[in-house]
């Protein structure tokens, strides 16, 4: 059979049901074969969004998302989507077309060295130059994306490979799946440390969301009487209505979570890479703390935080091993009681009813009115941090955000990918006007492919987070952060594409609008006109410790460290 036919069959064999992309010259043989296939192809309007949709799909389904773009500009546009998935360890298979093998390196039309471009932003990547290994390479790509620490894999396929003849024998060649890497040799040390700990804290990261170990970790927390703090990536992986779950820690985290992080004597860190947004000043982080670091990726251990007990393995396996080792022991409950009390004190009232509309009020109403299985995605900036701080994620709710790369414009396409993975769930993108304008063309995709997501636009007319930094750290010298006459009427914009939209300026209209959005059968935008003067607070300035926290409305009176 021809290479293009082989490619489609290999995707079908990997149980790929949907792929996101845009065709182009060198992909024509592939798209011609796709005509015969049951794989659903979502035609996006920009390749970057194909990447984000595949990413959103993967984060919900825990299966690799597949996206495809043509050579040259298609591949360069796709880079942002792939890099976003890489930083958040999302499994993805990204396919790009390429000019003929014998034209490679000759600056042919639409040629770019996508193999080199993708190399630093993928878990692994391939350039197929020999049709004999093409089927094997496709299988390897899916295997690598889904083994160990998940990640995106890129395959660059020259157009002559699609035209080449592939034998059944080549198609049948299987790839070896490596055994998961584990190293639990320090398990006893970890158990001893945790048993002796007077003030243990568990910090969970994105690895727990991928490993779906939230239930086990909550059990472990109850055994250790330890509070759980989450990173941004882990929000939603443990139920936030549990008394021991303190919510998101870090730069814009809840103060009680930062308190637990800074005042514990033993920190059990699971599936997290100690991002600078969590640790603040690295030299000050965990000076008084003994760290047990659990990660599936051995290269993460000791990368940012040194001097630790290391357990290499996936979160679910290691946590179960810890639970087995710790059984039947009781502990003094003073730390637990103190944390629960502090957590109650940290629950402030953000049902703000002043005018102009406050973003906290919008998030509060989303928490109250979204169903228990709703999926929330965010863009990047103030909208993301308000959502992380104030949105309550529990039950079957999910929270999806670009934590590592911080890609503005991620939330809307990721919401579409999530909606395709779970068509029966309400999927809401908490957006900002800056981010949404980076991907607003995707309304066309949402309407055309019938993907009814809700966009809750927190519209303040500014690149709000940058503005906030200019205000706090650059003497309010605003430059290039305000959108003046150029901002569109977002309601008209959405309607122009055939979506529904309403504008909300009063706090009394927020809940009703959200309820309407949940029931909408077409893409639905709510343009919340919010107070441009409202900052995301509390905030620990970059490179500082929680002692330097800027509190704003935050009522936290507890100690800092």
């Amino acid at each position, binding site marked *: 059979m021809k290479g293009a036919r082989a490619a489609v069959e290999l995707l079908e064999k990997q149980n790929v049901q949907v792929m996101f992309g845009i065709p182009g010259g060198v992909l024509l043989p592939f798209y011609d074969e796709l005509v015969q296939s049951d794989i659903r192809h979502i035609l996006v309007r920009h390749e970057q969004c194909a990447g984000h949709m595949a990413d959103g799909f993967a984060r919900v389904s825990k299966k690799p998302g597949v996206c495809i773009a043509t050579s040259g500009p298609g591949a360069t546009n796709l880079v942002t989507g792939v890099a976003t998935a890489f930083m958040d360890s999302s499994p993805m298979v990204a396919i790009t077309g390429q000019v003929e093998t014998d034209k490679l390196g000759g600056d042919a039309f639409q040629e770019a060295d996508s*193999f*080199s471009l993708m*190399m*630093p932003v993928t*878990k*692994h990547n391939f*350039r197929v130059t020999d049709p004999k290994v093409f089927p094997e390479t496709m299988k390897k790509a899916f295997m*690598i994306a889904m083994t160990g620490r998940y990640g995106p894999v890129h395959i660059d396929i020259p157009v002559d490979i699609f035209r080449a003849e592939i034998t059944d024998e080549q198609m049948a060649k299987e790839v070896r799946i490596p055994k998961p890497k584990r190293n639990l040799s320090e398990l006893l040390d970890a158990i001893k440390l945790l048993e002796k700990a007077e003030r243990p804290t568990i910090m969970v990261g994105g690895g727990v969301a991928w490993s779906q170990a939230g239930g086990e970790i909550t059990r472990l927390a109850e055994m250790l009487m330890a509070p759980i703090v989450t990173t941004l990536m882990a929000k939603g992986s443990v139920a936030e209505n549990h008394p021991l779950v303190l919510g998101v820690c870090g730069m814009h985290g809840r103060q009680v979570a930062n308190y637990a992080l800074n005042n514990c004597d033993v920190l059990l860190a699971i599936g997290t890479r100690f991002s600078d947004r969590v640790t603040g000043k690295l030299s000050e982080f965990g000076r008084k703390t003994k760290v047990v670091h659990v990660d599936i*990726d*051995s*290269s993460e*251990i*000791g*990368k940012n935080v040194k001097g630790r007990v290391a357990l290499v393995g996936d979160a679910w396996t290691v946590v179960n091993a810890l639970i087995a080792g710790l059984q039947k022991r009781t502990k003094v409950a003073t730390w637990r009681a103190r944390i629960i009390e502090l957590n109650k004190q940290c629950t402030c009232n953000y049902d703000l009813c002043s005018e102009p509309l406050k973003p906290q009020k919008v998030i509060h109403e989303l928490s109250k009115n979204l169903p228990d299985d709703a999926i929330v995605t965010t863009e990047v900036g103030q909208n993301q941090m308000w959502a992380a701080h104030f949105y309550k994620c529990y039950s079957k709710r999910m929270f999806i955000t670009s934590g590592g790369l911080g890609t503005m414009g991620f939330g809307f396409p990721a919401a579409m990918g999530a909606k395709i993975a779970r068509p029966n769930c309400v999927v809401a993108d908490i957006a900002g006007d800056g981010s949404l304008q980076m991907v607003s063309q995707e309304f066309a995709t949402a309407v055309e492919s019938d993907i009814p997501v809700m966009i809750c636009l927190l519209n303040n007319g500014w690149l709000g987070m940058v503005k906030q930094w200019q205000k706090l750290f650059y003497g309010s010298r605003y430059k290039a952060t305000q959108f003046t006459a150029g901002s569109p009427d977002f309601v008209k914009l959405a309607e122009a594409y055939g979506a529904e939209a309403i504008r909300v300026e009063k706090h009394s209209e927020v809940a009703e609008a959200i309820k309407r959005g949940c029931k909408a059968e077409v893409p639905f935008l709510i343009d919340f006109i919010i107070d441009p003067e409202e900052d995301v607070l509390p905030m620990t300035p970059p490179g500082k410790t929680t002692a330097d926290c800027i509190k704003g409305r935050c009522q936290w009176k507890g100690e800092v460290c």
Partner: protein
Amino acid sequence: MEVMMLLVYDQPGVMQRVMGEFNRKRINVETIVVGKCEVPDRARIVLSIEDKEKALSVIEHMRALHEVIEADLVDHSRHEAYALLFSRDGVCRVTGSVDEVDAIVKKSQPERYVQAMNAI
């Protein structure tokens, strides 16, 4: 000086991927030698780095690469070096211990030379 030895697939792009990690971590490679080895379709990379801590920090990242089969820091109690000296009289090859080769290079003051230190 630390010496790292890698067993890798012998195919295009591998050097770029390996060096990409060194680049990201801002590690300068002092010497690098690559060649075919006893295993068919595999190559061995031997390279040296000034700083031990940096060498240790990158080794797990090497092991995480899919085209790298083995990555280890090797014991180099015997410091081997190789140099090519170019002068008006022609090309001269020097092998020996690091100290020996270093001394010969310094003494002969060639117009141009290249030294592979600790990596063979």
